[in-house]
């Protein structure tokens, strides 16, 4: 975009470019809403069970854990990073929640604090490795994936931990919003809070600045190291919350919980239009739509009795479609 700001034509070009930019952004958001709507319509027309309120509730319950984890992953991606430690941190948080309440009979608030602390701690480790030491995010978070999974399995051993605290059950069963349970309300609440925070708080704006143009952010005097560490810590805490919700949903903690959730979170963000390769592109609330689209597809295939393995293959295809759509919308970079 070359603009000669001194002349009238220049100003007009600039105005036109700004309007075009606005329309394109609107189209992107509307586009994904339209895709979600079209899927809803198509699935509703071809299945008598899909639009039943019980099933809609199911979809929301099924995406709530990944949905919360995806908020964290989205913030990291927006800041120009990548986090592969999601699933392990979810498992670690689950194990701490369940072990402290069920085995050591501590109050839930203490257990939750400890779990979120540990999750934030892994996030801190990620942040230090990436920002202070300078290891590439994909490798640093792969290392912490192993460390967190190792720690979690060390505590868990070969047990299945069953939680008994009634709060867990309430989270998954008690309805608060229409017929949606508390855990879904927690997820939606987090999306509202984080979406607004990303727009109005200095933290949110700095995330976009750091992710969009690292050099410019550094030259403007933004605290790059501190910001990057903060982003990974916030993300870690969000994975911790996701783990807490997962315990509530299943009522049981086992070795393979959370496995591969990093990829589910990345897919939700990608389908929602967040860029994995260049930071600063995307919106947190669109990740929710991405998670919903994935959730609806999975749910529909389950209703139709499709083998879960082929559901995974479909998911890969969906991801490819999302990337292609992104390429068509935004053009070659």
């Amino acid at each position, binding site marked *: 975009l070359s603009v000669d700001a001194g002349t009238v034509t220049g100003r007009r070009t600039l105005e036109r470019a700004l309007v075009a930019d606005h329309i394109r952004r609107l189209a992107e958001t509307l586009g994904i809403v339209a895709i979600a709507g079209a899927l809803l319509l198509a699935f509703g027309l071809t299945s008598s069970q899909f639009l039943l309120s019980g099933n809609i509730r199911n979809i929301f319950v099924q995406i709530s854990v990944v949905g919360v984890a995806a908020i964290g992953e989205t913030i990291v991606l927006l800041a120009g990073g990548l986090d592969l430690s999601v699933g392990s941190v979810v498992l670690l948080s689950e194990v701490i929640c369940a072990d402290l309440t069920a085995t050591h009979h501590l109050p839930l608030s203490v257990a939750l604090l400890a779990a979120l602390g540990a999750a934030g701690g892994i996030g801190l480790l990620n942040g230090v490795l990436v920002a202070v030491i300078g*290891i590439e995010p994909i490798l640093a978070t792969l290392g912490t*994936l192993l460390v967190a999974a190792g720690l*979690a*399995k*060390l505590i868990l051993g070969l047990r299945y931990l069953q939680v008994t605290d009634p709060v867990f059950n309430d989270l998954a069963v008690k309805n608060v919003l229409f017929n949606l349970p508390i855990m879904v309300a927690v997820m939606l609440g987090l999306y509202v809070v984080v979406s607004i925070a990303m727009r109005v708080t200095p933290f949110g704006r700095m995330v976009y600045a750091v992710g969009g143009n690292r050099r410019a952010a550094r030259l403007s005097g933004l605290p790059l190291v501190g910001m990057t560490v903060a982003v990974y810590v916030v993300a870690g805490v969000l994975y911790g919350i996701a783990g807490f919700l997962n315990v509530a949903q299943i009522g049981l903690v086992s070795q393979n919980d959370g496995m591969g959730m990093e*990829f589910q979170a990345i897919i939700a963000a990608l389908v929602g239009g967040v860029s994995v390769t260049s930071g600063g592109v995307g919106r947190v609330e669109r990740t929710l739509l991405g998670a919903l689209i994935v959730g609806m597809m999975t749910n529909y295939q389950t209703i139709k009795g499709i083998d879960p393995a082929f559901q995974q293959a479909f998911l*890969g*295809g969906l991801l490819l479609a999302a*990337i292609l759509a992104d*390429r068509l919308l935004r053009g070659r970079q």
Partner: protein
Amino acid sequence: MRAIRRRLFAKSYIDTWFLLLMTAALLVAFRIAQPGWLNGHTVQNLVIQNTPLALVAMAMTFSIISRYIDLSPGSMIALSGAVIGLVYTAQGSLALAIAAGIGTALGAGLLNGFLVAVVGLNAVMVTLAAFIWARGLAIGANQGNPIDVGSGLSTVVNASWHGFTLTAPVVVVAYLGGWLLLSRTKMGRYTYAMGGDPTAARRAGINTAVYTVLIFLLMGAMIGASAVITVGQLGSAQATAGLGLELDAIIAVVIGGTRLAGGEGAVGRTALGVIFLSILNSGLLNLGLTDSYFQLYRGLALLAVLSVQIVVRRVTDEEERRKREQEQLSAALATA
């Protein structure tokens, strides 16, 4: 003599020396922890167990240098293996099954390469999608159960000569070939050029689309070979084959000293990285640790090596800078 010494200890080899030191330290540590592990068969076992990692890491060197990181190899090995199993079950011909398996791997490489080079999609995202869909198809091929391929392939792949199986020469040939390809051919030079500056490479008249597809095809070939070897070693195609292999391969390449940012690196370095990672994995496994300690120690060891590597690099860069400044200063003083 001095020239040789200067070359050997040049800055560009600092990563290599550091890695050799780490490998030696690892060997000593495992030797103390488990004296029986390091014996006459250790090398043979290392090669047999880590052939797919070695082959994929070789091709991954090209991927990383050209900045087209490929996340699909692990899933693709499982999918190609499943195709071998399915075709063998349906047709009963091993040759046909192997051809189909290798064809699948090459076809997937061609598809990924086409999507990246011609359609212009991002390599990480394309291969992430492949990572997911290929694993889904591999599991769906037989509801997650192994597909038996008879004993014909196993007898060939597991036939040993002084403890070495067919895999040893395959790995050696792959690395020699990879080294020649990267350092002595046009494709190698263009791989560096595309990774260094893709726009400049295109403007210099390099047909980047063709060479991008070739890089993905090279990965496809290594995936095909790995799939045949994996299926042969186990006598069946497993849906979980190659799980996490792509990330291991990336780690091996980076620990070897090739930068993830692209534009530089070498196949020989990857070989050292693979050796280090193989020793780490096998040594830890041999300690008979539970899964939890295995993952914990592995994670800590990798993070430690990556951290120290970067710190060492930074210190030598700093020294280099100081030396250069001092020379400039003395030159300025001399002229004044």
